């Protein structure tokens, strides 16, 4: 049987790598594995050294599983989560992100075994037992269906988005499906904007209003090159402080007159601005096709600004 030995290093990023990463760390947690085994799992699965550096614990394991001394400080450019680093230059791949998320969650369980988890955390955790999630939902007083909310920085909630916070809102689902709603909310969060001159757009986005735009979210990762229209938009933005807000108003208003009202400028001022903008962009935003092109460029720009997992 020895010849059947397979190697984890051959983890195929295409074929079900996520399932394998989840299975690996779940089994370590079931077996009550310690911190070193969890760091070793991250190193072996990622194929590069991994280090844990949290108060009281400094562990470094190389890709072949050997424990070694922590040497120097972690590079802020390395992919990291919860005190765990993968020692290679970023940006993180989708597999890296999955490894870090599962390993960091398992490490938290070891470091804080007696921590009582907040019911919101439990109800949104796909790996928590359905019983535990149902109980958490009852403690939160949730009705049959609810929505998950994703906020910047990885925090999350349930129900209605907190006012004044940038938020992605997941679809209303039966409470046991809230983890899936959260996944959709995280995607929606990437379409949000600060609502400022630099970053115009909606501060709250509902997942079910995105329609086919969600396809774009998958297409834009940390290493994706912006398309020429996005570069043109950035060049235009650098030319005048009013540029992005003006183009956003034109892209999202029913008419130029309505856009002028939103911007509180005179219609002729808007016409002058657009003439300038069209020269810089290289296409007309007066035609429906040009406005679609502008909408896409604005959306892609937002996705690029939030390309790491939200």
């Amino acid at each position, binding site marked *: 049987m*020895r010849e059947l030995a397979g190697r984890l290093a051959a983890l195929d990023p295409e074929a079900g790598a996520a399932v394998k990463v989840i299975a*690996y760390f779940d089994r370590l947690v079931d077996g009550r594995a310690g911190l070193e085994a969890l760091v070793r799992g991250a190193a072996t699965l990622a194929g590069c050294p991994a280090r844990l550096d949290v108060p009281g614990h400094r562990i470094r394991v190389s890709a072949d599983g050997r424990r070694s001394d922590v040497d120097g400080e972690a590079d802020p450019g390395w992919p990291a989560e919860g005190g765990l680093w993968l020692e290679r230059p970023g940006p993180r791949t989708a597999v890296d992100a999955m490894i870090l998320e599962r390993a960091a969650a398992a490490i938290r369980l070891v470091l804080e075994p007696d921590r009582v988890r907040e019911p919101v955390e439990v109800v949104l955790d796909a790996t928590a037992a359905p019983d535990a999630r149902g109980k958490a939902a009852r403690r939160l007083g949730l009705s049959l269906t609810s929505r998950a909310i994703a906020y910047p920085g990885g925090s999350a909630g349930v129900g209605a988005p907190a006012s004044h916070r940038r938020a992605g809102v997941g679809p209303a689902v039966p409470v046991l499906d809230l983890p899936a709603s959260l996944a959709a909310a995280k995607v929606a969060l990437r379409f949000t904007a600060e609502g400022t001159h630099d970053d115009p757009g909606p501060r709250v986005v509902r997942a079910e209003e995105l329609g086919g735009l969600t396809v774009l979210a998958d297409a834009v990762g940390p290493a994706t090159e912006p398309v020429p229209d996005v570069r043109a938009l950035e060049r235009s933005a650098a030319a005048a402080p009013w540029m992005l807000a003006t183009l956003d108003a034109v892209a999202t208003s029913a008419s130029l007159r309505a856009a002028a009202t939103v911007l509180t400028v005179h219609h002729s001022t808007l016409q002058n601005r657009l003439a300038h903008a069209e020269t810089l962009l290289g296409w007309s935003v007066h035609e429906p096709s040009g406005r679609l092109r502008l909408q896409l460029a604005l959306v892609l720009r937002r996705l690029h600004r939030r390309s790491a997992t939200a």
Partner: protein
Amino acid sequence: MTTGTPYGPPPPFDPEAAAVLEVLAARVPPAITGDMLPLLRNGSGAGLPSDDELCRDGLIELADHRVSDDVSVVVGRPPNLRAPAPGIYYIHGGGMIMGTNRVGLDQALDWAVELGLVVVSVEYRLAPEHPHPAPVEDCFAGLLWTVEHAGELGIDPARLVVAGGSAGGGLSAAVTLMARDRGRPLVAGQLLMEPMLDDRNESPSTHQMRGLGVWDRTSNETGWTALLGAARGGPDVSPYAAPARAEDLSGLPPAYIDVGSAESFRDEDVEYARRIWLAGGSAELHVWPGGYHGFDMFAPHAVISQDAKAARLRWLRRIHAE
């Protein structure tokens, strides 16, 4: 029959080793039956390192040699090794029914690099196409050839250790018995990694681990039946087929035996070590807690795998120093 022996639940797998098995679940069925053999033989080369990889950018040179119409060997050595050097005669695993002389060779070549020795890995005929005694006689023929060609291979014939894992461990034990009984060649030691020793397939561990881990008692029955046919488990099985059948384990070179606590071979391997001691021989026994069959190959990064490999290396260092 020991089926009446009371036993508890299976010992828990080591968590790191188990996590790998979890990931490989679909590719590693615990219970192998004869009808799965063509598929397994077809796919078994996929996980093996290529000869280029085995050579490790010039740290190792490989050369194939023909021993007879039925037997060949591959010889691996570090270049510029000072002759005569110690040698390892390596026999691959695969349940008597699968594998090639490249299976497990990477670990033997680790020893070659680490300790400065020559590895000779034998290609023997497999059951069921070639039942007993073909596999073990092929392995013995390769061993004799190695000793007869020790000069040109740069091997010190007084420092030749026989080594193998799983079926290769059983065959290593068998050729060591043959060498003792036939009066030649001299074997300096036997390194038996999770050896497959007992065709009767009735030890408590074969029952306790049924359907679990790697190479359970169904697989074991498949392998032994391929080798022995209807004679398997009966009164007339040769110790050269199943070394657990040997009545006399005296006069053997020092043995190293390792096995996982969570595998079918646990009890027959512990018993083999115990009987060597009882016969007045030398044996070093390691039972790795929570190891399933082949854990060190499936999960080479796991701490118990690192420790198991380090222990083998330490034993080899001692044996070759004597």
